[in-house]
């Protein structure tokens, strides 16, 4: 079960923590998100323009490559006679020559106008095959030059050819070359790619015309939405494998091939990019802000609790002071009403006392004397109570004089020293050597000492130790009176300074005003009185006298 009186503080601390947390985290998170969005936008824009220019560049590169290859082939065709080209040795020398000049051809072949392979040099066994039924054959015959898509052809392997028509001797001949597709693929991917990016060429049917290791194979259908014909570079965003991708496309002249480049839209890895300094700082903030909030909330709460306690203490002391003054006023108001009857009782019993004293032979004289003494004692008691109560209403400040606290204490102790011997109570004195002479009121100080010492002796009763401690604290003088009595229960401790509160009982008579008066006196002297007690060990009363008592 939680202590109910602590709950408000805990709740306050919780609230403060939350408020601080919000003040710390909301800007942090807002800035982080806004920054991240800005960053994403910028990154996306940058990625678009980078992709666009890459696509353009690659397209030009591929175009140049193909154009150059075709030009070389045309040059060769034009420069050689059919007879030469029909000779496989000559063809082979051409092939080697071209390859050494960096023209990417795999094989060369000469076809007659009937489609028959007249001569062939290259890794495949294609000599003598009839190409007349091949779709490209017609085209080259009509157009004079031809560049194929990637196709399987006779060799049952994806490849690409270029063919050039040559007219000689009233007949058409065709020089055909197989283009190195790996080289083409390499060209497209030249210079490497950013991670998550891909570049390839597709034909009109959407089949790969370039190869990239195991990811896409020649002639395979590409996993892209159909690309419409368009001029220039087209940029689009689409989802691919659950990621947003930026797709740039550009058609080659002739509209048979399209270069496709795609790249992940950047900044998709979420708000927390592990490589970003901002991310680390944000994470640090997420840790530091709650810790700081907690620390600050705790600190502030302690301050508040301190202030609260101070306020409560102040309130208590004001309340106590007002209570005393009220009692004083009440006492002054009724003093006449009580003192007069007391005076009459005293006078009447006094006469009785006189009579008994003068007639010692009266019957029961001892009993008379005894009972008269008791009445007189009670009158005295009433008189003391009234005097003390009236003391509260007095607001006249004490006269200040130089006081040696140690001497004042010792003198007070001497009043009670006889009692000490009788009840076997030892006195232990612990006096500091630096106790200054202060300006205070000796009589009132001694009244306080006497009260405290008497209380201590009453608490000890017999066989014990009375410890008297005097020391200097910041120019003030602190006196402690410690007893080895039974101690004061905690529930009573707060009440010991209340008027009429007394824990003493039995044979001795107590008004319950002693400590209340001590407190009044200490207040008047500008000092303080406090008590500590642990049941079973004893009680310590501390009084602190200022270096110079302030006059009211």
């Amino acid at each position, binding site marked *: 079960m939680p202590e109910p009186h602590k709950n408000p503080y805990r709740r306050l601390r919780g609230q403060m923590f939350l408020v601080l947390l919000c003040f710390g985290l909301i800007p942090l998170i807002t800035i982080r998100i806004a920054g991240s969005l800005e960053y994403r936008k910028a990154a996306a824009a940058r990625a678009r323009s980078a992709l666009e220019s890459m696509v353009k560049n690659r397209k030009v590169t591929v175009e140049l490559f193909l154009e150059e290859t075709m030009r070389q082939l045309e040059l060769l065709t034009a420069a050689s006679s059919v007879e030469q080209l029909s000779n496989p040795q000559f063809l082979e020398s051409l092939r080697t020559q071209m390859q050494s000049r960096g023209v990417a051809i795999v094989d060369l072949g000469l076809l007659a106008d009937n489609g028959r392979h007249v001569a062939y040099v290259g890794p495949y066994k294609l000599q003598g095959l009839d190409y007349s039924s091949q779709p490209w054959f017609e085209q080259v015959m009509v157009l004079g030059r031809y560049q194929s898509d990637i196709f399987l052809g006779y060799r049952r392997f994806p490849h690409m050819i270029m063919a050039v028509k040559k007219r000689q001797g009233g007949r058409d001949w065709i020089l055909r070359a197989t283009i190195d597709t790996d080289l083409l693929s390499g060209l497209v991917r030249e210079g490497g790619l950013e991670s998550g990016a891909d570049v390839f060429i597709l034909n009109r049917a959407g089949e790969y015309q370039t190869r990239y290791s195991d990811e896409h194979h020649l002639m395979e259908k590409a996993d892209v939405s159909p690309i419409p014909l368009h001029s220039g570079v087209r940029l689009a965003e689409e989802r691919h494998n659950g990621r947003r991708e930026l797709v740039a496309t550009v058609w080659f002249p002739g509209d048979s091939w399209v270069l496709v480049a795609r790249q992940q839209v950047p900044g998709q890895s979420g708000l927390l990019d592990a490589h970003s300094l901002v991310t680390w700082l944000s994470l640090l903030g997420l840790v530091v802000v709650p810790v700081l909030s907690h620390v600050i909330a705790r600190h502030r709460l302690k301050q508040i609790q301190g202030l609260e306690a101070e306020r409560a203490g102040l309130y208590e002391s004001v309340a106590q002071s007002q209570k005393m003054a009220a009692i004083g006023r009440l*006492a*002054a108001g009724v*003093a*006449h*009403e*009580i*003192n*007069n009857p*007391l*005076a*009459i*009782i*005293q*006078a*009447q019993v*006094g*006469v009785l006392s*006189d009579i008994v004293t*003068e007639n010692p032979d009266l019957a029961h004289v001892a009993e008379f004397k005894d009972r008269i003494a008791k009445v007189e004692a009670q*009158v005295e008691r*009433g*008189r003391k109570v*009234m*005097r003390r109560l*009236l003391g509260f*209403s*007095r607001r*006249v400040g004490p006269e200040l004089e130089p006081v040696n606290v140690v001497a004042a204490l010792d003198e007070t102790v001497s009043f009670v020293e006889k009692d000490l011997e009788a009840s076997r109570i030892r006195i232990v004195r612990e006096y500091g050597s630096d106790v200054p002479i202060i300006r205070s009121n000796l009589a009132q100080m001694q009244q306080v000492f006497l009260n405290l010492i008497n209380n201590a002796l009453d608490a000890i009763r017999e066989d014990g130790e009375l410890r008297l401690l005097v020391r200097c604290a910041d120019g003030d003088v602190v006196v402690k009176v410690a007893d080895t009595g039974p101690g004061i229960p905690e529930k009573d401790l707060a009440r010991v300074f209340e008027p009429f509160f007394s824990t003493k009982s039995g044979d001795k008579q107590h008004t319950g005003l002693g400590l209340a008066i001590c407190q009044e006196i200490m207040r008047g002297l500008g000092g303080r009185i406090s008590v500590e007690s642990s049941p079973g060990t004893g009680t310590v009363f501390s009084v602190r006298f200022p270096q110079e008592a302030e006059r009211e």
Partner: protein
Amino acid sequence: MADLRLLFVDDEVEFLEPMAERLRRRQISCTTAQSGDRALEALKQEQFDCAVVDVKMPGMDGLDLLRRMRQDYPGVPVILLTGHASVELGVQGLELGAFEYLMKPVDLDELLDAVRRSAGQKAR
């Protein structure tokens, strides 16, 4: 010790009489008066060494009586006795020339001491 002649003024006879009786037992010739007026009458007829005067009395109160006595009988010291517990009253009384200011209930020895001191002072 020579007998002292004392005037005891108090409106409360229950207090006045036993006090007078006790004082007489202690060789003090005590005349009582229950009001200021009667006290003044007694003062006209007799000579006193000292007067004990209650402050609060109906009619002429103790302070009025004190003023009159300081004027007409300056040789008779006045001890004020009161059930009231006002410091201001005490200070006022002393300012008016009271010899002493005592509070009821007063210890008989204390009163006797004050009476003797006042008479002794007068003798000097």
